[in-house]
């Protein structure tokens, strides 16, 4: 019988054992189910963390932090059963004379972490041979918070037999196959991830966080000419467990989606009549549009040019002057940011430099109030109320954190009767984007909405428009916002974006009701 990590730890002191620690993955496959191993990742992580931070102080880092990640991923597919991936890793960040070094490695051991911190220190020290770089070091000497936070989920997917998920998928597939029209081009899948992160910093922060990510893909397409496809939009990447699937009546939603699809596919098809129209976008599309045109534009690293060679810049050029007065939309537009939002994929308690995530108003009465920042970038804003907002996020152990916008919530128009159907009824002539994608330039300034578009005449959908796009200037479009729907039309979507060099991806949730714009420029995306 093999020794477990705990056995070894019991038998010897850490100093001796840590050099030979086995790093067993959790999945033990005896008897057809995952069996929990005796591996105690916390014990090892905490000891490695202590070794790392002591070393950082010894060698003279002005500041250092460490993240230890233990991630499990489960991907359930229709054809290939399921894939199971486990990842361990550690990441060290060091600050020396205003310059940063970063090192990551897969192995949790004393040898590995000491090597990592020496390399990170060496890089920072080497870079500091250049001109002075101004970072307000005092910010890093604040006593950090410590504690433990576990994302509340109802059903931990990693406590379930994965074949239960396969059964679920088989049931959904059988349901779709029974639709009376050929829907053989369907896609069904589930993804689950759990991240366990132990964070520590030389300022005293000692934190543990566990976050979950779940998402589903349920979609089908009618195999008959130029018909629309349907993808279930209530299964976006979310900070939830298996309840993402079980807490809703998927079959009713699919059935309603199918009926809607049949209805829409019977509409005549017409080319684009270029012009300016009322344009209605349902909750998920509106959330995507807002996240991309506003969320990304108020990431302070983009604003100050730190992403000029990677993720792009921003239409906000002078944060010190513009924040608080930049008019993004009409006075009834209010957007809140909140990292602790229930079910948000960007939900955290602390960010990846140990800062407590804050919440508040991002847009108040149409004015942009805040920019998302880490501790370093906030120095570029002179305003005293601009603090680090707890939005410095890394996608995994192999990437350094970067500024990422938090979960965003567009406040609904509670007084209105604003379901999507109600809003359509009130449009004499306009365009409805049932599903949409958004493409933006490198300054988040100009963009194009494309997708499944319909003409609205006299309060109903009258035809499907092929090749329609809405060409916009971000702030002009939002200042032409005519109406925000009520909470009935509210939907959540996840926005994932690449940033940094090397590029890394991170996600946030955006929740929005349907929105109606006036005078939106509708163009033919296929016409040269």
């Amino acid at each position, binding site marked *: 019988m093999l020794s477990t990590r705990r056995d070894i730890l019991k038998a010897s002191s850490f100093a001796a054992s840590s050099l030979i620690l086995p790093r067993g993955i959790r999945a033990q496959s005896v008897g057809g189910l995952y069996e929990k191993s005796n591996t105690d990742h916390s014990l090892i992580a905490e000891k490695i963390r202590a070794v790392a931070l002591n070393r950082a102080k010894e060698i003279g880092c002005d500041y250092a932090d460490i993240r230890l990640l233990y991630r499990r991923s489960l991907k359930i597919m229709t054809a290939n059963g399921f894939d199971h991936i486990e990842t361990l890793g550690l990441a060290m960040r060091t600050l020396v004379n205003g310059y940063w070094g970063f090192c990551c490695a897969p192995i949790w051991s004393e040898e590995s972490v000491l090597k990592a911190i020496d390399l990170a220190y060496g890089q920072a020290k080497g870079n500091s041979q250049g001109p002075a770089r101004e970072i307000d070091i005092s910010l890093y000497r604040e006593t950090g918070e410590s504690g433990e936070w576990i994302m509340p989920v109802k059903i931990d997917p990693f406590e379930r037999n994965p074949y239960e998920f396969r059964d679920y998928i088989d049931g959904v597939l059988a349901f779709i196959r029974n639709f009376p029209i050929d829907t053989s081009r369907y896609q069904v899948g589930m993804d689950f991830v759990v991240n366990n992160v132990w964070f520590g910093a030389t300022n005293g922060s000692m934190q543990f966080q566990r976050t979950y990510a779940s998402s589903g893909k349920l979609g089908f397409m009618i195999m008959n000419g130029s018909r629309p496809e349907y993808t279930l939009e209530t299964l976006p990447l979310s900070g939830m467990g298996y309840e993402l699937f079980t807490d809703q009546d998927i079959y009713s939603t699919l059935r309603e989606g199918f009926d809607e699809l049949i209805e829409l596919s019977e509409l005549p098809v017409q080319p684009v009549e270029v012009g300016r129209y009322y344009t209605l976008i349902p909750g998920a599309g509106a959330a995507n549009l807002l996240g991309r045109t506003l969320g990304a534009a108020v990431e302070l690293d983009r604003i100050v040019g730190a992403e000029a060679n990677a993720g792009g810049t921003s239409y906000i050029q002078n944060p010190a002057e513009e924040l608080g007065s930049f008019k993004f939309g009409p006075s009834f537009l209010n957007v809140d940011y909140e990292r602790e939002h229930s079910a948000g994929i960007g939900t955290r308690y602390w960010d990846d430099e140990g800062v407590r995530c804050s919440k508040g108003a991002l847009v108040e009465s149409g004015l942009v109030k805040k920019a998302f920042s880490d501790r370093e970038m906030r120095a570029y804003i002179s305003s005293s109320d601009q603090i680090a907002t707890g939005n410095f996020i890394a996608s995994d152990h192999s990437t350094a954190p970067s500024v990422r916008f938090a979960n965003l919530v567009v406040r609904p128009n509670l007084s209105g009767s604003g379901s999507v159907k109600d809003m359509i009824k009130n449009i004499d002539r306009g365009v409805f984007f049932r599903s949409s994608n958004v493409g933006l330039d490198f300054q988040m300034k100009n963009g194009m909405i494309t997708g499944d578009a319909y003409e609205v005449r006299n309060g109903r959908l009258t035809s499907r428009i092929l090749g329609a796009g809405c060409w916009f200037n971000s702030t002009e479009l939002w200042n032409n916002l005519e109406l925000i729907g009520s909470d009935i039309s509210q939907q959540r979507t996840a926005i994932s974006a690449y940033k940094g060099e090397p*590029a890394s991806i991170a996600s946030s949730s955006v929740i929005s009701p349907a929105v109606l714009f006036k005078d939106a420029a509708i163009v033919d995306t296929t016409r040269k």
Partner: protein
Amino acid sequence: MKSEDRIPGRGKLFSIIDKVLQLSSGEGRTDVTVSAYWQGNTRWFRNRIGMSSNRTDYRVTIRRIIDRGAGTVSMNQTDEQSVLSAVKFAEWKAVTERKDQKPQDFPVELPENRDSDSYVWGEATANYDFIDSGKIVRITCQRAEDLDLITAGSVECTSFSAAYYFYDETTRKENRNFTRVTRSDLSITARHPQGLGSGWGGISDVDFARINEETIASKAFDRCLASMNPVRVEPGRYTAILESQAVADMIGKLLFASEPVMDRASAEWQPGARGPHPFYLGYDEAARLHRSKLGLKVFDARVNVWHDPLDPELGVTGFTASDVGIKKVSYVENGVLRSLSYERRYSVNRLEANENNVHRMSFRMSGGSLTIEEMIDSTERGFLVTRFSDGSISDSSSLAASGLTRDGLWLIENGKIKSAVRNFRTLESPFFILNNLDQLGLPEKVFTKTVQNSTDINRIGALYTKNFAPQIIVPPLKVLDFSFTATIDAV
């Protein structure tokens, strides 16, 4: 630090594979891929170094096939207990999974053992020195400050090694392969402090020693200075001189580096709701098959596109886990579509063969001998385009895609550059471009950015696709009637 201390070589990787074999029950078929990467990076913004990073990781993927059931596990740990757990889990899954693996999923004949490390390995990349790169960055930043410009940029060196093992108990055939590859990237953006102009330079190469940082920086600075005070020009169709980077942005991601577009099975499939595949020809009543445009002339006769895994400048491995030997493939010869990629299952069912023709995203395109200056000399009126961003497809049949010019766009009149021009949104199809060629320039390497984060663990290992973008070598092109559809005010 020496390169061998950064990533493991053949001996270390095969010792991990041997550990898997010792712990495996041995029945059926065993596939193991062990890969590792190291990456050094120095990134800067606002003329100061922001961070240097040093990254390493492993990926061990074990696939066991027992009685036609398959089980795969992937992890980044290499110790004995982890390997044991993974092997047991893969075997349990192989036994309990559906028995749906088909004989055509496996190669009949195994290629010879292969070692491709010498073709695509740059010592300067593998031995990237942070102190030296720091000096390079500081010199670049000082040059920018002297010109009153603000720069951001990144220098990145990556080395990758992988070992692949296959054993089939029934045939008692065994195969061992090892490969290693390097890649280096440098890109620089220079901007005017008030955002009045922007310029860019970048390149990717196997060998960091072949990258001339001064030249790349000069390109970025010169373009930034020359892009200020842009004039507004009416949208329309213009002759466009596309620099090699702009060509790669158009025909790389959208066409030759796109797996779905270069997939033969998709090209020979009944058209769906989004219209026919770009290479779909029609239904052959006699053969009762959907036909692709293979063998037909689809581009200008001067267009030749190919991929050679042993090309020392393309920097690709010679095998993947699903295809142990990749051959040279010619996609387009004299404008005629000669090859599309396919998987083993397709070749067994349709081609009466048992082979993979895996799509590799790296490619070369032939060109001519003209310089950009010579192309400008012969242009009466047109634009010079540095590069594009946001190539989102508007029509999946023609691959017509909207794009945005960026980091330098100039108006050419009577053989001279007249002025900088405000950026445009464009709408063009790579098919249109490659059929409306006026002139072709000298092919050169371009910058390619890795943007995918693949979790396809059945490939050579997600680490490869995660950290390596395709290498592309293409010529600058002078294209007639290129469609510039709207001006944009982004800089």
